[in-house]
């Protein structure tokens, strides 16, 4: 009796089984809980009348039970040829992608998933095993398309039935039926044509299940700004030169990266202008990262950066950032070529950027970076002091349409 009662509880309810399979995303909130690749432990509570708690706090502060930084530090290899930092260690890739969405896979569109897709294509893993985000999206879209097609078919059937009832479906109806019949026959012909393409892979999958596994040849690429933020801003990354396999010091890193934002790369020992591309873009990158945004490159939307609220897996980017140097310091007052060359851009350019951004429902932010005057030759400055000389102004921009902005 008890068993009989338990049976309907344990048995899966029939309704969900009848529904088409929903491709579930992994729990991103759990996976990407940390906003940066650092672990944070809260300090013990302060109890005012207990002096021991203060000592406890001091000890916990000075000697934390868990280090915030990984202990050996993550390693990245700077490649001059690709002007990027390569991460090959799987743990590091996971840490940087999952906690802060740094970098992109060099064979994927964002998250490094090449090996999974490859394994699935070769039949090492099943069709629905360990779906990547883009595969889930693709299937969703496929499903949606199929659903729309089905809906249109049903609607047409209903309409035809209605017409037949009203007696209007006579000659035209017959013609229609003939049309659909010929259409279906052609579609079956097409299906026959495509079938051989589909079958060998599935047969191979079923027959040769134990295929030799695929080696993961993908690495994570960090842009220079990301790498510099991870090493200078967070201290979580140790940069190595890929050619010499030696550590690069922080001060040298800055010079090296500044040299590599020019093409062809300049000599890292030379002195750079205060408005070189790396400084401008890094200042903006650091600014938005420190405000908690996830900053990704925005070339595909014709902007410099895209700002994600929590990360690309959670929502679409809300803002596109354009970096513009501003020469309002009196030092640049006489520098006509700089002002005209980089500060003045044609109006139609701004309109085109704004149109492209509003097509994809993003707001453009013009970020003006105030360029400080150049340093004297004998002046030496730390990286932090160097960056502190820059300031950033933001102006949000949106297409204004009379009809849509009326009260």
């Amino acid at each position, binding site marked *: 009796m008890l068993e009989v009662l338990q049976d309907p509880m344990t048995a899966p309810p029939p309704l969900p089984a009848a529904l088409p399979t929903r491709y579930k995303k992994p729990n991103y909130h759990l996976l990407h809980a940390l906003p940066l690749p650092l672990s944070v432990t809260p300090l013990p509570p302060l109890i005012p009348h207990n002096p021991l708690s203060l000592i406890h706090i001091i000890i916990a502060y000075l000697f934390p039970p868990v280090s915030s930084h990984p202990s050996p530090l993550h390693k990245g290899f700077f490649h001059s040829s690709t002007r990027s930092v390569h991460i090959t260690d799987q743990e590091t890739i996971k840490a940087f992608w999952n906690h802060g969405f740094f970098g992109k896979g060099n064979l994927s569109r964002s998250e490094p998933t090449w090996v999974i897709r490859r394994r699935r294509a070769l039949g090492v893993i099943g069709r629905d095993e360990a779906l990547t985000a883009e595969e889930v999206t693709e299937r969703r879209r496929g499903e949606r398309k199929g659903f729309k097609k089905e809906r249109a078919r049903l609607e047409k059937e209903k309409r035809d039935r209605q017409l037949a009832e009203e007696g209007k479906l006579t000659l035209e109806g017959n013609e229609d039926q003939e049309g659909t019949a010929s259409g279906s026959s052609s579609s079956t012909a097409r299906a026959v044509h495509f079938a051989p393409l589909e079958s060998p892979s599935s047969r191979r999958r079923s027959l040769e299940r134990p295929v030799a596994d695929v080696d993961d040849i993908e690495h994570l690429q960090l842009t220079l700004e990301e790498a510099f933020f991870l090493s200078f801003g967070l201290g979580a990354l140790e940069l190595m030169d890929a050619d010499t396999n030696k550590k690069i010091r922080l001060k040298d890193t800055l010079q090296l990266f500044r040299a590599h934002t020019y093409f062809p790369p300049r000599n890292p020992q030379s002195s750079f202008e205060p408005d070189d591309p790396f400084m401008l873009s890094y200042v903006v990158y650091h600014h938005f990262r420190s405000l908690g945004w996830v900053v990704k490159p925005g070339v595909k939307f014709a902007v410099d950066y895209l700002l994600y609220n929590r990360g690309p897996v959670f929502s679409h980017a809300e803002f596109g950032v354009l970096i513009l140097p501003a020469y309002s310091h009196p030092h640049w007052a006489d520098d006509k070529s700089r002002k005209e060359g980089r500060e003045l851009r044609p*109006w139609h350019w701004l309109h085109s950027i704004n149109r492209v951004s509003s097509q994809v429902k993003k707001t453009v932010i013009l970020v003006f970076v105030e360029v400080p005057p150049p340093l004297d030759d004998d002046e030496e400055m730390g990286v932090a002091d160097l960056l502190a000389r820059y300031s950033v102004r933001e102006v949000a921009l949106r297409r204004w349409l009379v009809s849509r902005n009326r009260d």
Partner: protein
Amino acid sequence: MGTPTTPPELFPIYLVNSRYFLYDADVISDVRRTHRMSGCLTGTLPQIPQQNIFLGLPLELMPEEALLLVEKGAAYIIDDVSAHERGLRGMGEVDKKEYLEELEQDRKREVEEYIRRVEEKRDIFVRRSNGEGGEVDGLEQTARGDGDNEEGRRIFENSSVPNPIKASTATTATNVLIYYPTPSSSHPIYHYHPDPSDMLAAGPQPERTQGYPLYKHLHERGYFLSPGLRFGCQYMAYPGDPLRFHSHFVVNGLGWDEEIEMQDVVGGGRLGTGVKKAWMVGGEDGEGQVRTFCVEWGGF
């Protein structure tokens, strides 16, 4: 005002504050028909200056259009400010008197026309109130007596005026409010056409902009080009009259050695493809040959 030496098809383009204008509707339609230039209507109503859906004269030309018309020998540039001042100052006493007389004549003609219309209406009214109208309005008919013309006039005219005949003659003076129709082209006094050979009134040649070679190249191939600022480009290229066709290209004229950012190419591709057009860049190479390139955004 055209002198006999001037061929009739040579028309002036007025330069005001480095913008090029046409004021004459006939010239504008001719430019559109024979020179394939649509320009931009910029005039608005003084009482509703904010509406910009229906714009009228004058027509603004792009500098490229003005330059091309001048190069073709179809038009000449006039510096409108100096021409206007010269026109007014150069006007002698005789001219001035003539002009004022002409104005007065116009006014008189208008007033006479107005009075004629008023009388016509009054006659109609009187005839109606005497004839079939009287049967309908029996009460008024009895009050008015037996259809006196003067009575009818009194009813039609303002009743406070004692003598209606006198009042109607008095309207010939200044107490009648008349709305003059605005002429479609400006009066020659304000737009006196200096001779094309008149060096003093001649404006500077339009500047050869960077996009001009590409503009000319496309124009020669039958395209209508209109300014594309609000579409994010320099020109929109229509395969025919913009009233009949959608544009095919979003055009940007560049220098041959000009550097263009990758990001802007991406943006251009998206811009064009998003509205089912092609983004075109082009320029003149070293040998004076114009070459064009189209970019489309193909998502993978």
